[in-house]
């Protein structure tokens, strides 16, 4: 009797997650073809994503993908409103893992047996099977190659020296420094930031103006630019590079199908495809992102490993992450 009730609850849980016992990649693809499309809300560069969309469409013909870029907080806010109104229009969302608690609190993502159905490696399946890790945003020190020689910045501490006074940029929210606080601890991090701020950085409001300002020579170095983007800009001819200085902080990028999505099977296929070697390769080739660690690490991750640079990944403990961000942004002082 007790086993029967447990089995019934398990079946209910599976059905709530949109899983059927016989789900396979093939059966999901057949269902997805019936659905016809997948609607993606992304924090990534959707225009650069076009090549990925083409590769996915070649692998799964008959599926139309509608992807558009929207900041993560705005996307979650909209998804919450749609869900409460019973009119969900999005199938899949990607965001850095810091936002996932907001999603879980509202039951917008549910467990799915990614490993069993698709064979996704365990290290990529996060938060009780509710989301998948698809890449990392590394936030190293970056510099303008016309103004700084390779190796000239040898440690994080260097930027507190008089030599760099007024010559570097600092992103106002300090995402990377907040991740480093996991390793350095609160006291050391705040002390470091105070010395940084005393060295008169140009404070910027987000990563994009930081990278553009650095490329245009407004500053010689920067904290807050994304490594993958720096690399892509460098390939396009920008005088930019990232300093091989550890530890390197990295945010975790995740993807999850939204509960109540109008195209659930297509959503699962799209989410899974990101984790495949093919998905990872196109992610790195087109956008410079992907996983920095593990068997599927991208070339930049492999270089970090070869050079012995340690990577600090964004914590999965949401409250700790939020606390660190608050103390860091307050210490930088541009915001409040």
């Amino acid at each position, binding site marked *: 009797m007790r086993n029967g009730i447990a089995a019934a609850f398990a079946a209910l849980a599976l059905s709530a997650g949109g899983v059927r016992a016989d789900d396979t990649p093939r059966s999901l693809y057949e269902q997805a073809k019936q659905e016809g499309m997948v609607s993606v809300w992304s924090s990534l560069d959707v225009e650069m994503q076009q090549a990925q969309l083409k590769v996915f469409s070649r692998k799964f013909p008959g599926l139309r993908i509608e992807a558009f870029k929207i900041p993560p907080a705005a996307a979650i*806010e909209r998804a919450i409103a749609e869900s409460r109104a019973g009119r969900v*229009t999005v199938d899949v969302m990607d965001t850095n893992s810091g936002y996932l608690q907001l999603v879980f609190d509202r039951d917008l993502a549910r467990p799915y047996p990614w490993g069993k159905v698709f064979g996704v490696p365990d290290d990529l399946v996060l938060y009780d099977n509710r989301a998948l890790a698809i890449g990392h945003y590394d936030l190293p020190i970056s510099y303008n190659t016309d103004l700084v020689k390779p190796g000239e910045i040898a440690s994080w501490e260097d930027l507190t020296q008089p030599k760099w006074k007024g010559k570097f940029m600092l992103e106002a929210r300090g995402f990377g420094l907040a991740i480093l606080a996991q390793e350095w601890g609160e006291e050391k991090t705040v002390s470091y930031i105070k010395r940084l701020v005393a060295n008169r950085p140009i404070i910027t409001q987000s990563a994009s103006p930081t990278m553009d300002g650095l490329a245009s020579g*407004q500053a010689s170095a920067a904290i807050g630019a994304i490594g993958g983007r720096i690399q892509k800009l460098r390939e396009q001819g920008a005088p930019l590079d990232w300093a091989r200085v550890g530890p390197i902080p990295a945010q975790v990028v995740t993807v999850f199908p939204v509960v109540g999505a109008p195209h659930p099977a297509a959503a699962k296929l799209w989410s899974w495809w990101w984790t495949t070697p093919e998905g990872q390769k196109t992610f790195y080739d087109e956008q410079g992102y992907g996983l920095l660690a593990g068997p599927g690490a991208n070339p930049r991750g492999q270089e970090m490993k070869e050079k012995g640079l340690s990577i600090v990944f964004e914590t999965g403990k*949401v409250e700790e*992450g939020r606390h660190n961000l608050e103390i860091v942004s307050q210490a930088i002082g541009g915001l409040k």
Partner: protein
Amino acid sequence: MTEHAMTNPTVGSREAGEDSARSLPMILFGVVAAIVAWIALAPFVMLIYSSLAADKDKLPYESTTLSLDNYVAVLADAKNLDLLGATAAFAIGSTVIGVGLAVFFAWLIERTDIFARKFLFVAMLTPMAIPSMIYAMAWIQLCGPNNGLINATLTNMGLGFIQVNVFSLTSMIVIQGVALASHAYLLIAIAFRNFDSSFEEQAFMCGRGKLATVFRITMPMLKPALLAAGLFFTVVALETFDIPIILGLTSHVQVVSTQIYWSTHPESGRLPEYGAASALGAVLVVIAYALISLYTRATRDAKRFVSVTARGFRPRPIPLGAWRWPLFGVAMLFVVVAVGLPLFILIWRSLLRFYQYPSMKALQALSLNSYYAVYNDPDIPKVLANTFTLSVGSAGFVTLLAAAVAWQVVRGSADAGWRRALNRLAFFPQSIPSVVVGLALIFIYLWLPIPVYGTLWIMAIAMVTRFLAYSTGTIIAAQMQLSAELEEAARVCGAGRAWTYLRVVLPLVTPAMMAAFLWVLIHIVRELGLSLMLYTLQSQVLSTKIWLLWENGRVADACATGVLTVAGLLLLLSAPTIFRGARGIWRAAFGT
């Protein structure tokens, strides 16, 4: 029906006709007020509700607790005194500079015989077409501490001891003021254009000098328009965030609008703090309400500001004489600094993949690649079509609605208290943070069975909400310049209310309506905050496209799109001149 009417059918039908004639204006007032209330009250209710909803990491409609905590936090925080001080300095300083420059240029271009008036008119409006974010970035490229064009040039000339510090409160005030001048000019120019020069001529005949006439005759007569501009742009400066956020971060200068921005654009893992933002927004609403009350009081006696009467009016230019060249020089200096240099940087940046200080090496790197990229972008046709539909449709609707509001406020037959209330209601949305307006619209149109969510329609409603205050202020100021004699004369000749409005009033307020239409249209094309909250793949517009390019690191492509947008808007502003010129050439060539 009365007993008398029942026994005399002729009297009864006449009374019924008079009743209906009396009730029609009230019905019209009711319709206009209902539309304005629907537009203004939804975000206002959301503002008040979300300022009371206290739960952290919940959206206002998810919150189960209502309290005054957000207000206590805003009002009790000692840091907010500094915030309010900096905000007042920024808002008042930039408004004084902006409106001052606008008055000077409006007088110069509209009321004098200065050279190249049409060129100055278009040049004056050009900064309005440049998105504020790009305008602020252009000033960093010009006056940045390490490689800003002006600072680097000064250093190269051996004048390195003279450096402009772009990251300071003073720079924020001056740059915002210069940007505002362009916006205020459009509003103020209409009032100068409608000014009857016979008042000035009478002053000259009485021996008054030109300067004395300007300050004793012209300015007092234009009080409604000047006050409307001062009031409106003070509120605009209170809520604008692009320039303060880009220039204020480094110098640690915070104003209320940047505080609202950070509250509603939270760090990773948090939802926007609508509670704190809304409480600050409510404070802005109170300030705006106080300002509009002052405005209403100052312009209570509308007859004092009438300059367009039934006796005709002649907007004749004042000869500047020996002052013509010096004043033209001053105007050109402004054009070069406020328009030419930022526009040059924008164009320069669009021709280089990555910014370089102007040099021979940089000249060799110039290319049109970004323009090709924009031309070949598959999204562009849809983006242009959406932008055109949204901007023309919303600007057209908001202008017509504002004209109806202006008529009701200035000439309507409703009780004065109701008319004042309508005026204030139309002004409310201006001081509500954009994000709160966006949230209110998402909430309402997801719940109501009106299928506008995810379409251009919801963006159009947002734009009408956002820009109702400006249009209403502009047209009310113009309406106040019209004498009631004009309508009375038409009525004496047997014209009905509708005919009088269409044939007498409308032609006279059309310049103000055109100015409001153009201003709103340009601002809809530039508007980003609301568009980002409401757009979808199907409803992308130019501002979201530029943002996407910028965010994705394609800054040159973003600048190229910005340059093309500015060119398109300038073409629009110049259209009447071009049309008149083409018609002149046609007539000269073919004699028809």
